[in-house]
């Protein structure tokens, strides 16, 4: 649920017919993806570059000029490496309009034009015609939810790089270096990673109170919902908060075996068994937050009962934790740490 628009469109299909309700079951089931770590086998400066990902291997024969990014995250890395994609997804959410602010700033700095927004069809699929019309040299979907069918269709348009293992999950080092190798800028990619690591480390140092606080990160409780969605360690949100000094809840980490998704749903009956001292969440409206924290069972959960929780009201910061890239981190990590610091339990 972390990606409102895409999920909205996909889940709407569920609402439109009864039969599809059954197929939602399979949508909830673990995907069959048996991935291996995406490894770049190319040394700097040498094409072809071959990238491994969940749907196989993709070879890029020459330096791509026209880049389309699908999902989140990749577009930040591409821009950070000095290239402007020709097509990206819409990031509109709350106070974020169309483009992530740090991405738009970087494009302006590079003197490029803001990319076209990739549309979705009413069936919730990418508008493949539009992608074709952009005549990309490469399609980067390193942090996305593309299906194998999507992948095959995209491959007919241009060499496509899918995510490494799980939908909407990626590792900062691995993703950044993969994009770096595709663009033949691996050294620059490493430099960006070092800078981002240093920025996170500085923010962590400025907030020693984060040390050792066991946290959970999830979304709000919807009307009629009886489970709470919590992000698993494979989602980049969790490692980012760990880098800031927080400790991931071991109970949530244990759920990683139950699903291949980037999140796990926890029944409200079992929520009390999930260790957490500090809960981070996002919501679309203040009413969503109220509904969540006032639920009779959620309100009994340790971090909520203690008033030790933080729901993002600034969607810019929520995005900055959702896809914490080498581009977003330097411009947001201090604001992010300050926002979290405003809500962490005082005495720890």
């Amino acid at each position, binding site marked *: 649920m972390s990606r409102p628009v895409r999920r909205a469109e996909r889940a709407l299909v569920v609402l439109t017919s*009864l039969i599809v*309700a059954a197929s939602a079951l399979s949508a909830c089931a673990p995907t069959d993806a048996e991935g291996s770590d995406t490894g770049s086998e190319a040394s700097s400066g040498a094409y072809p570059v071959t990238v491994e990902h969940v749907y196989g291997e993709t070879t890029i024969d020459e330096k791509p000029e026209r880049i389309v990014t699908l999902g989140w995250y990749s577009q930040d890395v591409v821009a950070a490496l000095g290239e402007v994609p020709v097509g990206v997804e819409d990031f509109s959410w709350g106070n974020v309009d169309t483009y992530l602010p740090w991405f738009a700033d970087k494009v302006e700095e590079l003197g490029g034009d803001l990319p076209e927004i990739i549309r979705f069809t009413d069936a919730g699929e990418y508008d493949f015609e539009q992608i074709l019309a952009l005549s990309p040299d490469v399609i980067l979907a390193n942090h996305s939810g593309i299906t194998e069918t999507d992948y095959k269709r995209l491959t007919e348009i241009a060499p496509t790089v899918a995510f490494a293992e799980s939908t909407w999950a990626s590792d900062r080092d691995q993703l950044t270096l993969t994009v770096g190798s595709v663009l033949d800028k691996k050294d620059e990619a490493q430099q960006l990673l070092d800078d981002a690591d240093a920025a996170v480390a500085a923010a962590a140092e400025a907030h020693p109170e984060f040390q050792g606080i066991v946290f959970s990160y999830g979304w709000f409780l*919807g*009307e*009629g919902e009886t489970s709470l969605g919590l992000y698993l360690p494979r989602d980049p949100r969790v490692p980012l908060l760990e880098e800031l000094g927080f400790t991931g809840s071991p109970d949530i980490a244990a759920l990683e075996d139950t*699903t291949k998704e980037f999140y796990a749903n926890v*029944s409200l009956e079992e929520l009390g068994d999930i260790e957490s001292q500090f809960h981070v969440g996002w919501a679309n409206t203040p*009413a969503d937050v109220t509904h969540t924290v006032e*639920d009779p069972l959620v309100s009994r959960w340790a971090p909520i009962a203690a008033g030790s929780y933080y729901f993002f009201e600034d969607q810019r910061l929520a995005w900055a934790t959702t896809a914490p890239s080498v581009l977003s981190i330097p411009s947001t990590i201090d604001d992010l740490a300050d926002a979290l610091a405003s809500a962490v339990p005082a005495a720890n």
Partner: protein
Amino acid sequence: MLVSRAAERPVTSRGAAARTGGLVVAVVVLGAAVLLSLMVGSKALAPATVISALFDFDGSDAQAIVRDSRLPRTVVGLVVGPALGVCGALIQAFTRNPLADPGILGVNAGATFAVTIGVGLLGVRGPNAYVWFALIGALLVTLVVYLIGGTGRGGPSAGRMTLAGVAIGAVLSGITSIVMLKNIEVFSTLRFWGLGSLGGRDDSAVAIIAPFIAVGLVISFLIARPLNAIALGDDLGRTLGAGLVRTRVISIIGVTILAGGATALAGPIAFIGLMVPHAVRWFTGPDQRWIIVYSALVAPSMLLLSDVIGRVVLPSGELQVSIVTAVIGAPVLILLARRKRVSGL
């Protein structure tokens, strides 16, 4: 056609004694379903904990699970279940279509559409407001369907009404989808309302809806006998003195209240309204009075059992009851379709 159906009747119907006995069984099954719904959930609780939660609440987290979650969702099941079952029975009798369900008259689509418009255009929030939109939407659609299907040459026709219902339902579902697709906030607000579930519902919404559904159920029992005459066909029904128009109008009111109320409270839940009256007819035969009483008892049992399955079937988290009923309902529907003889009306 009439003759052959009449000839089948003695084969499918049981004696009054068997039907009364069956009723006792249905009540016992419902009691068992309620118990299961209180006892079984994602978290294993000792029966003693469940009992003291109900009668001697100590404020502990374990007992809160029973009191604040399992009990309310069981109550929602007991309110929504009979509404869905009886509504399905009414629609099947009134359209003389043994496989009809509330979807077929566009009632659910109307309720969902009105709530979506309320949230999307009028900024309505909260289940208490959804209730009124759902009821008004259900009523308007039913009236429009009745006007389209019920006027024209030859007077009201069940077939024409069904066609009108399906068509309007499709149009409204389409518009609902467009509104949701274009407005992400509406979508996220209605995400779980739109997937029918018993849990996580507002207590005050239950209090508002339950009286409506009670009225709808009473209406349904009252028109069971005239519906029997309608089942014989318009001409024969008329000669038997059934007030056709009156019975139709009352049926429509009943369907609107029951389907609109159930949808407002728990979101759209399919298959129960189709499956339960149909299956019940195998046992009771074609008498609407029995069908309605049995549907009112069997539907909540099925709904609660489906909800219990949804709580325990996933390794982590819970499945909405509407998904469970669809998964269970699909094979049952295939089974029904494969039977040589549909249990007719």
